[in-house]
Each structure stands twice: as C-alpha cells, then as structure tokens.
C-alpha cells in the first residue's frame, strides 16, 4: 500500500508546494518558479504511470519482452519544451512589467494601479 502509492504522494507534495509558492508569494518570478515546480510534478506523475516493473526503455531490441509505456514519454517530452517556451513568455511579461512599474511585487503593482484609476 505505502510503497505502491508512494510516487503519487511525492507528486502531490511537490504539486502542493508549487501551489503554495504561487499563492503565497507576491514576487512574480517566484510565482513563475512555483508554476514550473507544479508543472514538473505533473510530468513526474505521467512518467510514473508509464513505468512497468521489469520493463526497459521503449527502444525496440531483440530479446527484450517488456517495455515501459512510450505514450506518456511522448506527451511529457513535448510538454517540457512547450513549458519552457511558455515560461519564457511569462518572464518576458515580467520584464516588461518591471520596466513599466519599477517593481515585480504584486501588491505594489496593485497600489500603483489603484492610484491611476
């Protein structure tokens, strides 16, 4: 029981830590870091689901009967690269926000917004 679900629990712990970083920090870069940890935990979950006991990497070779499931690997491989691309856009937004507002703290940005309107 404990061993069989251990991976999923680690995933949940990681995911919740990422979630906590996102909601509790006001620094926008910290929030992005939290988001990428959240994302990584999902990757780990997919990859653990594809693992088969005694299987090997899904590269076909003679004499090997069990392979781990290749489908989650494909999904996560592309997701990682897409993830970095979206994080890059997020960082670009942060840089622009910093140029306009002079800060990347969420509450300070809010204050400045309140003043202008």
């Amino acid at each position, binding site marked *: 029981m404990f061993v069989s679900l251990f991976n999923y629990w*680690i995933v949940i*712990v990681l995911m*919740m830590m990422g979630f906590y970083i996102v909601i509790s920090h006001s620094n926008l870069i910290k929030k992005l870091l939290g988001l990428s940890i959240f994302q990584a935990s999902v990757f780990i979950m997919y990859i653990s689901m594809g693992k*088969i006991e005694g299987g090997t990497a899904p*590269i076909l070779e003679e004499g090997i009967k069990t392979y781990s499931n290749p489908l*989650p690997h494909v999904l996560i491989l592309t997701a990682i690269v897409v993830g970095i691309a*979206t994080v890059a856009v997020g960082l670009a937004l942060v*840089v622009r926000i910093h140029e306009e507002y002079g800060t990347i703290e969420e509450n300070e940005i*809010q204050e400045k917004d309140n003043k202008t309107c």
Partner: protein
Amino acid sequence: MVLTVFIINRSTDLLASIMLTGIFSLLSAGFFVLMDAVDVAFTEAAVGAGISTILMLATMSLIGQHYERRPTRHLPLFAVAIVLVTGSLLVYGTMDMPVFGKADTPVQQHVAPRYLNQSMDEIGVPNVVTSVLASYRGFDTFGETVVIFTAGLGVLALLGYRRNKQQESNHAMPAMSSHKILRVIGSLLIPPIMLFALYVQFHGDFGPGGGFQAGVIFAAAIILHSMLFGLSKTRQIFKDRSIYLAAGAGVLLYGGVGVVSMFKGGNFLDYNVLLSDAVSGQHIGILLVELGVGLTVATVMLIVFFNFSARVDHQQEEKS
C-alpha cells in the same frame, strides 16, 4: 527533491532559488532515467537544467536579485490551509489509483501495446518514442511546434523593439574577455556540442533523441558562444533575419510534409504515401518532420535568449 523545493520556498534570494530550481530539474531528469523515460530525461536535462536557468538568470539581472519578503494580501495561514485541504483531497484520490509498476493497469491497456508490437512493422524505427511522436501522434507534435513558434513570436513582440539602438552598441565589451581559460576551453567545446546536437537529431530514430532535444542542445552551443565572445559578435554570425526565417521554415517544413502527403492521396501527415514503399516513406517523413521541429526549437530558443540578453546589455550601458 522535496527538500530542494522547500528551500526554494523559504529563500528570499532569487539567485539561490533559481539555482535550486536548476538542481531540481537535474534531479527530476535522474528520476526519469530510473523510470525508463530516457528521451524525457534527455529533454529535461537540456531544458530544465540548462536553458531555463539561463533565462531566469537573465531576467533576474534585469530586475535585481534581492527582495524583501512583504506581507501579501492573503494571509500565509490561509494559503497553508488551502494547500493542505487540496493536498489531502488529492491523496484521498490516489487511493483509487492503480498500483505502481503493474503491467495490467488501464494506462498500459489502450494504445500502448499496439505501438510497441506493431510500430516496427509499420514504421521501422526502433525508438518507439520517436515513431509515436512523429508519426502516430504527428498532429499533436505539429500543434506543439506551432505553440513554440508562437511563444517565440510573443517574446519578440514583448521585448523585441529597440533593434536599431542595439546595432549602435556593437562596441560593447565581450562579457568574458578577461577569462582566457574559459574562452579557450569554450571555443574548443562549441564544435563538439554542435556535432552532438546533429547526432542527437539524426540518431533519434535509433536511440534516445530527436528534434526537440537536438534543437535545445544546438541553441545551447550558440548561447555558450555568445556568453564567451559577447552577444553582438554572435548576432553578427547568426543574423536576426536568418534566425526568423529558419524559425518559420521549421514550421513550414513540418506542415509542408503534411500537405505533400495530402497531395499524394493520403491524409494530412500520412507518411506512408510519401515514397512507393510505406516503411521508407515513414522514414523520410519522420526525418523531415524532426528536422522541422529541431529548426523551430533551436531558433525560438535563440530568439528568446537574444532578446533577453540584449535587454541586459542595454540596461548595463544605460547604467554605465
């Protein structure tokens, strides 16, 4: 890994957090190897521990390293409560999850056996990940390539103006001009890295690798060059125009393969009809598609990096 994340949460020093995120990525890459996902581990090591750390650092140098931890609008206790409740609900959810590592779980039943058993006859490529990526799920991968391309466009739109001012500032000192050893070793390393990227690109059919990883590694080689010899010098070798062209060409190559297969009477991205023989058609299709992916990924990474570090250079000039 949990420990690393915990420190990331506590730390108020952005540099430390970013470095720890890099370590976290490397650890998860190791985990992926244990889980037999060699392709994924490859990507994570190149992307997570390499490119994303560099991008975060570039952003940080634009913004400043330290910040004070201020009280947020939400009480931390409230956040902890939300997190705990969500977490325990999720743990409750895992009680129904199938046991880890068993072969008879629902995940393993659906399409995976077909991929494993028949891809050798249908596609003729030993690396199942590659054949699923480029052929069975070619639509997905095409979509993802377009997403990456769009992200490149987005960064360009947000940070890309002020090009003319950049050209004037070509006299800027190379960042590492004082580190002779680094420069010599670095320039020795760049060609092998590029060669390795090409190997990863074209060997993806047989071993772990493919367009995504190769693109990232190739971009890493060029980024190394720009860190050693200064951004303006790298930009003279890799002109902005040609990078933009290559990024578009990558997506067009992928889409073009699909359109050609449509003209030949098959479905979009159906490589069987590309050549007279279905298996060799698949081979050439996967090769071209992976090339398109590699081109797009490499150039988008370069676009992103160049725009970020051009900002950094510009800001340093304004200060000095």
